[in-house]
């Protein structure tokens, strides 16, 4: 098994209360299902959409946003999968796609001695 990080980008949208509740329930069902199948290494955390950006040699501090709204990372999950292909397959159940968001699937680098 290898580890992969899901980065959730965008997919936040002005929605009605009923729709928001449905979306959340879909997220919880999806994550629960991944956990039941033993794919969750760390459920992860939500990230606030605001913060600071520190850049360059000058260590210039600027306010977020760090990217366009549709690309802002809103959270992450650390998962376990056989290979990148499976990790990608598993990500397709994420409800974020209904709101035109994206899941970035990144293999965690391992040190093989």
């Amino acid at each position, binding site marked *: 098994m290898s580890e992969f990080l899901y980065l959730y980008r965008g997919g*936040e949208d*002005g929605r*009605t*209360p*009923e*729709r*928001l*509740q449905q*979306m*959340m*329930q879909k*997220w*919880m069902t999806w*994550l629960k299902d991944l956990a039941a199948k033993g794919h969750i290494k760390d*459920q*992860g*955390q*939500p990230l606030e959409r605001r913060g600071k950006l520190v850049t360059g040699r000058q260590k210039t501090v600027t306010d977020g946003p760090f990217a366009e709204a549709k690309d802002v990372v*809103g*959270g992450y*999950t650390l998962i376990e999968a056989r290979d990148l292909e499976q990790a990608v397959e598993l990500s397709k159940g994420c409800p974020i796609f209904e709101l035109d968001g994206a899941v970035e699937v990144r293999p965690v680098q391992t040190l093989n001695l």
Partner: protein
Amino acid sequence: MELSEHLFRRESGRMVAALTRIFGVHNLTLAEDVVQEAFCRAVEVWKFRGVPENPSAWLMATAKNCALDALRRERTARTFAPELGRLLQSEWTLAPAVQQLFGPNEIKDDLLRMMFSCCNPRVSEEAQVALVLHILCGFSVDEIAGAFVSSHAAVEKRITRAKKLLAKSRRLFDVSAPADFSARLPAVHTALYLLFNEGYHGASAESAVRADLCREAMRLTSLLLEHPLGATPTTYALAALMSLNAARLPARVDTSGQLNTLVDQDRSQWDRNLVSEGLKLLERSACGSEISDYHVEAAIAAVHADARRIEDTDWRKIVSLYDMLMTIHPSPIVALNRAIAVAQSEGPERGLEEIGAIDHRDRLARYPFYSAAMGELELRLGRRDAARRHFEEALALARNPMERRFLDQRVAACA
């Protein structure tokens, strides 16, 4: 922890009402934005960490914090609720004042304040109902359009207009002034009654949507009953009528979406708890000198609830109650229902006579169940051709697939 169904929608009304009280009614949009922000936060956090022990309290606390942020951010650019004045200006009083305004009793009053504000006589009754559904029940424009079988654009226009009017009214309705309260109460009753009826008789084909509307109307009516000025005999009568009618909902539309008339309903499916709740409310409504249409309608519903089989129905009593309703509030639709009751007690021939004698019958021309009632009575008299013509007329007026299917079957029954 599982979330109860429609929790967000319900909490939305409480949060918008509380925030509007703090921000002032002219900042209604800001209140709605802040509520949206609180929901988004909840979704972001809960989907990773699970739903907290007390989701309502969590949402309310989040709304409060978002409100504090907004108050600090905007206090130089905007004025907030005039009656709160300086409390919100100074950092010393801001947090304690907001804290207090989020107390549970305050929020109950906020909901009433908002309910009474939405039932502004300058807003059409149709728009009042849409506004109540939107602001207090958290229904989106699409959900309202679906429930009323209306277009998104039409509902949006109606709500936007009404909101603008509300925002211009300077302050929310004062529910602590008895004279004003009593003067506005009938309008509130009407809006809640219309909301309930939209669910009960309305055009939406989805039984879930209908049940939702009825439940919301009942929830808001019981809120009214919790207020000393709101708990009048008429409010009790309205609540009774809702409970007694809602008790029949499970049998009215079956699981396959089939519409069943009172005659054909499987009465074992009636909700007995709602019936006894309704009867209790009806008893409590009988303490004043005033008899409203709601009293009479509830009494009619109680007669039906009392009959275990359709044959056991006391139709004479129902006719006399409709007679009473015709003196309080005559309308072609009441007259039609009265005629149907006459037909049940004195035969179809008499029923048709009564229908023929309805004043302003032309106002029923677009109502499918007017022709359908005549079709039914003709059919009972064995006059199949006349019956079929009436049912075909009704079919042409059907408002949704459920009604169409029902009337199709009635046409077929004439063959």
